[in-house]
């Protein structure tokens, strides 16, 4: 096999990593290099250092250690039966690339994943070596996200937690039965077990007594679900997310519209990625996490979201009896359910109404989207009257340019 130069390897192993939607570099312990020997800092908020023409943020150097893989997951470009070109970095190559990029301020840190070579343990060990070298040999204090191999031993996963700020295991398919068909070597129970162990470890290290010992440990874990590779409906996907958030305290579930890949498997639909569907799922996910909605209120299991309208407005249209809401008197939970009012706008409404009688113009100034809000609110100078119950309200609220997304 020809020896590949670093640039070619980087091209192959970043191309292979791009189907992972996770990009966050936030939520790490605050630290900097003023009292250290190396480089790096994390200050809570993540930083996106560039954006690709797909609109996705580039925050971390997101690469695979290798794209050789013994598994045959149909949706994955790196599955064993794909004819994609293969490459493998050495531990030192990844360490040097990370440091060189970081010092030039291209990235917040490293997101390292890998195909499974030989065994889960062998692969995980190699990945842990990269993180360990960055932290111990180079006193690197930037962000590290490590992908966990579910079959790897619990000890290795725990060691990964010592060097990483975040770890993740991708479930990929919302339904366990499709995991069986499309990813025959992956075992949903292995994945859930590894996530369960990681939550216990993260919780344990977050205990005040442990914190005082100043042992650093990963702060969070996340996962990804592919949308559109199997038959799962939006309700199934969100039910899975609700389950994951509750069971493992995930900081994020990422949704990744299944995207055509080079040399695709014949078992999967080769169509344009369902980006609008992905967008609606993120909106619904936000409603569950920050707006107090239960999954069943947004969409029932076995059903799909209405793509033509955002899920909050969709919910309001089906529950018109609860509107209009008087922004001067309604409580926070009620305001959070008003279309066009985001979490920030709600906080500002609560602050402003202590000193003033809010008008529609005021609502606009605090960041509300009036086009969506006006049919559902009462202000000092506005009442929607029959508008709330008008049959044509939905068609007036559907924004035609949103349909141009595909």
């Amino acid at each position, binding site marked *: 096999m020809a020896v590949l130069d670093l*640039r070619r390897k*980087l*091209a*192959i192993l*970043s191309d292979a990593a*791009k189907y992972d939607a996770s990009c966050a570099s936030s939520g790490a312990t605050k630290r900097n*290099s*003023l009292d*250290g020997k190396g*480089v790096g*800092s994390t*200050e809570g*908020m993540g930083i*996106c250092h*560039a*954006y690709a*023409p*797909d*609109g*996705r943020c580039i925050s971390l150097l997101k690469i695979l250690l290798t794209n050789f893989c*013994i598994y045959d997951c149909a949706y994955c470009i790196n599955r*064993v*039966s794909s004819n994609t070109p293969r490459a493998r970095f050495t531990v030192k190559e990844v360490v040097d690339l990370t440091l*060189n*990029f970081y*010092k*030039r*301020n*291209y990235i917040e840190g490293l997101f390292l994943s890998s195909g499974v070579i030989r065994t889960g343990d062998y692969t995980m060990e190699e990945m842990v070596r990269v993180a360990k070298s960055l932290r111990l040999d180079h006193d690197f204090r930037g962000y590290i996200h490590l992908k966990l191999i579910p079959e790897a031993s619990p000890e290795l996963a725990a060691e990964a937690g010592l060097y990483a700020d975040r770890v993740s295991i991708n479930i990929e398919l919302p339904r366990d039965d499709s995991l069986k068909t499309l990813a025959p070597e992956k075992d949903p129970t292995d994945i*859930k*077990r590894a996530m*369960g*162990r990681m939550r*216990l470890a993260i919780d344990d290290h977050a205990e005040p007594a442990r914190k005082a010992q100043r042992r650093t440990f990963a702060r969070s874990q996340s996962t990804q679900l592919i949308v559109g590779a199997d038959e799962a409906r939006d309700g199934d996907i969100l039910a899975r997310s*609700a*389950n994951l*958030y509750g*069971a*493992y305290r995930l900081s994020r579930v990422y949704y990744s*519209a299944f*995207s*055509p*890949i*080079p*040399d*695709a*498997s*014949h078992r999967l639909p080769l169509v*344009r*990625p369902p980006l609008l569907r992905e967008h609606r799922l993120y909106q619904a996910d936000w409603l569950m*996490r920050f707006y107090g909605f239960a*999954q069943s209120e947004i969409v029932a299991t076995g059903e799909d979201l209405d793509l033509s309208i955002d899920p909050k407005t969709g919910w309001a249209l089906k529950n018109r009896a609860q509107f209009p809401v008087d922004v001067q008197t309604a409580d926070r939970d009620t305001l959070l359910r008003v279309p066009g009012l985001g979490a920030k706008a709600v906080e*500002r409404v609560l*602050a*402003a109404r202590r*000193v003033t009688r*809010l008008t529609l113009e005021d*609502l606009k*100034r*605090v960041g509300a989207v009036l086009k969506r809000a006006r049919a559902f609110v009462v202000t000092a100078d506005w009442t929607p009257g029959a508008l709330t119950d008008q049959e044509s309200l939905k068609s007036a609220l559907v924004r035609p340019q949103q349909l141009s997304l595909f």
Partner: protein
Amino acid sequence: MRVVRLTSEVDFAGWRSAARVLRTEGVEPHAVVWTVERDLFSPPPGDGVDGVDAPRSTSASQGEKAFTVPAAFLELAEQVILHRAADRFSLLYRILWRLEHTPHLIENPADPDMARARDMAKAVSRAAHKMKAFVRFRLIEGAAKETYAAWFEPAHRVTEATAPFFARRFSNMDWTILTPDACVAWDGERLMVSEGADPADAPSEDAQEELWRTYYASIFNPARLNPRQMRQEMPKRYWRNLPEAALIPALMEAAETRAAAMVRTPPRPPSDRVLKAAQRHARDASFGGGTPTTLEAVEAGVSVCRRCELWRDATQGVPGAGPSNSPLMFVGEQPGDQEDLAGSPFVGPAGQLFDRALAEAGVPRERVYVTNAVKHFKHEARGKRRLHKTPAQGEVNACRWWLDAERRLVRPRVIVMLGATAAFSVMGQPTRVAEARGQILPLPDQAQGLVTFHPAYLLRLPDPAARLTAYLTFVEDLRRAGELSGLA
């Protein structure tokens, strides 16, 4: 008309001193002109205009009446002053002026002046954030110590305010950031600020940029082209100083074709080499359906059990634990949140209470076998929590297969049923704990049965007195079971 001359575009101290004087003297906002001293030869103010030179000290000088403003206003003003809008000084003075009669102004995000100031502060904070993101250092070749420099054009005058961020992050390398407004440099110990510079003063390339561009091009997914989103987050004004941005037009142009080609190209058969490798690694078949003959087989079976639907939302099946020849078996209801995550029974809060009671009853914990009627955690997701749900009879019936296997293999002398679900599972018929508690019940497999409370029930009792009474009864039941089994 009063004219205030500030020493620089970001002279917050000067603005603050002048504003303090003006408000104390009752000068109305529309009667003040704010300017920045550009050089020594700037024209003097015209006739009929009184100049106010900003005092250099920030503390109130003699004769001024001190007044206070909310701390939030000062924080806001410090941000707003970095904005490039020419009217920022007068906007801030107008808010300061209005604060005298409208003290709650600062708390009203809906006020037009406040909304404008907030928008300006937001733009400044965004500019600072984008500076942290888009500065691109280049290595200065041939320098004795590792030294970097960058040319950057911030949207607002945030260079000095953002410099400490770079010092904290790149503490151990020397670096300079050059901008048209000001330059900042770090030598490993101190930050130095100097006059604005010219792009020619910064290095024009860096060998790593070729790799960075390779990464940028490869991480882009042409099937998801969305340039509007990209431009929203990475406005074009920054592109000329980003080495990777030169690739954008070509990447966008080729995207359609590349995506279409992926959809069109039929899949090729996988190569023999990789398929053989895959076969070598093929996993053993999962657990077959036969009756388990060892506790290890029960454990393996529970982990792949699909006899009911509870496995779907649970992390894992939780088998029993303890010596395989224990004379005393405890059967609980089902694993809880902690048990589900850890994969072991009786490790959560109820398990801890159980351990305590067992110790008080004088029964050695390590010699008893503990298990559950249902091996998967039944629950309901509520945000970041999982609420326990009682298993249905059908689920208990489905899971009895495993409990029966455990009873057959362990052959305990005494089986303690903790709560109604356990009693239903062990005896096969609905049993009320209140009625059956404390009686010795003969079981068909020669074992003696004893029903008592589930420890979680004790934890839930709201009345402390009732809880204590129930706990003492519980300990007494455990002691009895220990004696019957010969363990206590």
